[in-house]
Each structure stands twice: as C-alpha cells, then as structure tokens.
C-alpha cells in the first residue's frame, strides 16, 4: 500500500509544477500584452505627430523657398520685375501710360521697379518668418513625441525585464520544490519492505 502511494505523490508533484508553469505563462503573457499596448500608444503618438508635420508643411516649404530667393534679393541680384506685385501694378498703370510722352512712360516704369525691389525684400522676409513659425511648431511637436516615446520605451523595457526576472525566480522556485519532493520518494520504496514481526512471548 505504501509503495503505491508513489502514484498520488507523483501526481501531486505534477500538479504543483503545472501551477508554477501556469503562473509563469501568465507573467509572460501579461508583460507581453502590456508591451503590445505600449506599442499601440507609440504608434498613435507618432500618427498625431505626422499629422501635425503635414499641417505645417505648406508654410514651412514656402518659407524655405522664399529664403533661397531672399539671398539674391538682399544683394540686389533678384529681378523685381518678375514678381506678381510688379506685374499687377504695371497692368494698372500701363493703359494710361500709352498716351503719355515716352520719358514719362519710362520714368514711371523705372520708379515702379525701384520701389518694388525694396518691397520684395520685405515680402520675402514675411514668408520666411511664416516658415520659421511653422518650424517652431513642428519642433515643439517633435520634442513632445520624443518625450512620449522615451517614456513608453522605458516602461516597456521595465515591464519585460521585470517579467523575465519574475519568471526566472518562479522557475527556480519550481525546481526547488520538485527537488524537495523527489528527495522524499525513496521513503516510499523503503516503506514497502515487510516489517519484522516480533516473536510472541512464550
């Protein structure tokens, strides 16, 4: 009878191991779930950031393009007669200039170009400042995203590291328990030997 007690004892060991394994699996799954959720959070934050960049892009691009022309404008290498403002003003006065003496016509056009040359510099600077404002806003979004990602990655790392440590400890505990239970098995074998009976007292 004692020998057959090994069977429920082994079943007990198995059940104990199963319990530990169940706990370990849940530790890993839970940490993985949290890490996956953090990944979703990072994706969402990145999406919001990219939307903001797209929103600022037209202003930023206009500023950069104006900046390239501004370099020529301030060194008076840019032809102001190509600007839309100059062409529009010329359109307003040209009809009346047709009947004017030539020197009056030439004088008016020259004056128009000179004034537009200076005003164009101011207009290009305005565009650059709009672009700079867009860059500033995008920079704020970028900084915010960087902070959010750093925190999220740190949290994910801590969760996974904590789970790994916990699983390691649980494994150690499981094997310690198993070893302890195995060490008790020989007693079932020794208990199965028939006992010496005492001789009746005569």
């Amino acid at each position: 009878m004692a020998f057959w007690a090994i069977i429920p004892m082994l079943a007990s060991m198995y059940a104990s191991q199963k319990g530990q394994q169940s706990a370990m699996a849940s530790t890993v799954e839970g940490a993985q779930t949290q890490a996956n959720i953090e990944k979703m959070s990072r994706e969402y934050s990145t999406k919001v950031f990219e939307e903001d960049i797209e929103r600022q892009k037209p202003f930023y691009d206009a500023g950069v393009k104006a900046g390239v022309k501004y370099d020529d404008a301030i060194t008076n290498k840019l032809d102001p007669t190509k600007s839309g403002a100059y062409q529009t003003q010329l359109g307003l006065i040209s009809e009346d200039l047709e009947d004017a003496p030539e020197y009056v016509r030439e004088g008016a056009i020259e004056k128009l170009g000179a004034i537009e040359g200076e005003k164009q510099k101011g207009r290009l600077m305005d565009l650059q400042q709009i672009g700079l404002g867009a860059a500033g806003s995008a920079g704020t979004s970028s900084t915010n995203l960087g902070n959010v990602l750093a925190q999220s990655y740190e949290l994910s790392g801590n969760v996974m590291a904590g789970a790994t440590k916990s699983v390691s400890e649980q494994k150690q505990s499981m094997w310690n328990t198993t070893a302890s239970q195995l060490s008790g098995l020989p007693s079932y074998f020794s208990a199965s030997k028939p006992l010496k009976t005492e001789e009746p007292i005569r």
Partner: protein
Amino acid sequence: MGFFDLVLDPAGIFSGDAKASDLMDPGGRVIEETTGSDIGRDISGFPFGSGAWDQLDESAEEIWDSFSGAAAEESQAEISGILEGSAAEGIAAQEEQRNRIKEMYAPYYESAVSEGLPQLQAMAEGGEVDYTPSRLYEYSKERGERNIKRIQASKGQFGSSATEERLSDFRSGLAEEEMDRLYAGQLSRTQLGSGAADAVGAASRSLGGNVGALYSNLGSGLNTAQQGYGQSRQSAYEGLSGALSGLANYMEAG
C-alpha cells in the same frame, strides 16, 4: 445534468424539477418557488428533497471550474473586457474632441493654404495674382485725376507734359497703395491659417497625451489581470497538489 447527477443520480430520482434555491417542506414539496418550478409538486419522499442534490451539484461544478481555471478565466475575460471597453471609450472621446477642433479651424487653415499663401508667393516671387481693382482704387483714381487736371487747367497747363508727369506720379502711387492693401489682406489671411495650424497642433498634443495615459493604464490593468489569472490557476493546482499529497501520506501510513 450536472456532475453529481451524472455520477450519483443518473436516473434523476432525486433531482426532480425543483431548483436548488427553491424553499421546500421536509416532504420535498416546493412551498416557495424561484423561477420555473411547480408550486406544491410532491417531488419525492426523500427528507432532504431534490434541492440538496442540486446544491451539491452546483458546488461540485464550482470546485471543478476552480481547478480547471474556468472560473478564473471567465473572471479575467470579464475584467479585460471592462478595461478594454473603458479604454476604447476614452480614446474615442479624445479622438472626437480632436476632430471637432480640426473642423473648427479647418476653414481658416484651408483659406490660408489654398489661397492666401499661394497669392503671397505669387506677389513676392512671381506668378499669377488673383486681383480685381477695388472700388476705393477706382474712386480715388477718378477723383485724383480730375483734381489734377482742374488744377493744371487753372494754371493754363492742361495737356502739357507737366500734367502728364503729375498724373503718372499720382497713378503709380495709387497702384502702389492698392498693391500694399492687397498684400496686407493676403498676409493676414495666411497668418490666420498658420495660427489655426498651431492651435490644432497644440490641442492634438494635449489630447494625444490623454490617449497615451489611457493606453498605459490599459496595459498595466491587463497585465495585472493576466497575472491574477495565473495566480488563481496556480492556487487551484497547489490545492490539488496538496490533496494528492495528503492521499499519498494516507496510503503510506496505511
């Protein structure tokens, strides 16, 4: 049929139709029903009545669910469902607010991006300017030209080159003012749109932070629920292990 019904009472002698929660007299007659059982039906002469077996059956099922983890799994699924549902609602609320803010600022933004900014670029760099002379310009031009001609005529210089010069200077100045007004208007429109973009960005960052917090809480909550489930399963297995160990000790002693 439940666990005990199958094992101990397959013929259904004791189970009857009464519910475990039904109140019965010692003869097994139901004197107060819960749901579905017949009032006054004489179920059996067994002194405990059929309700006792149902009670045992329910308890056995609960014990089995505890060992097999079914109860813990159901609880974990329920907790996870609550957490996920709550987070989903919270995130949806943040997105709704974000969309509402985008819609509010959309007209200013669209006006700037599709009209204001391209016109500024055309005026400053080159391109077609969308323009029709204003009424102020037309009025000022007419009045101004008339005044100059009148003055010049009073001097006897009507039709002279001096008159043409004065008219030319006046018209150039007026055109310049008109262009400044046009440029100022387009610049203001563009700056409104730029401000709208900044406002939407600021709101998105703030609401996005709320969503991040919702995700973090959800992840932490699901992790905790999962670990709780694992601990419940472990506890159930440890209980079974203990019972088997006790049986082994009994057999060893016997």
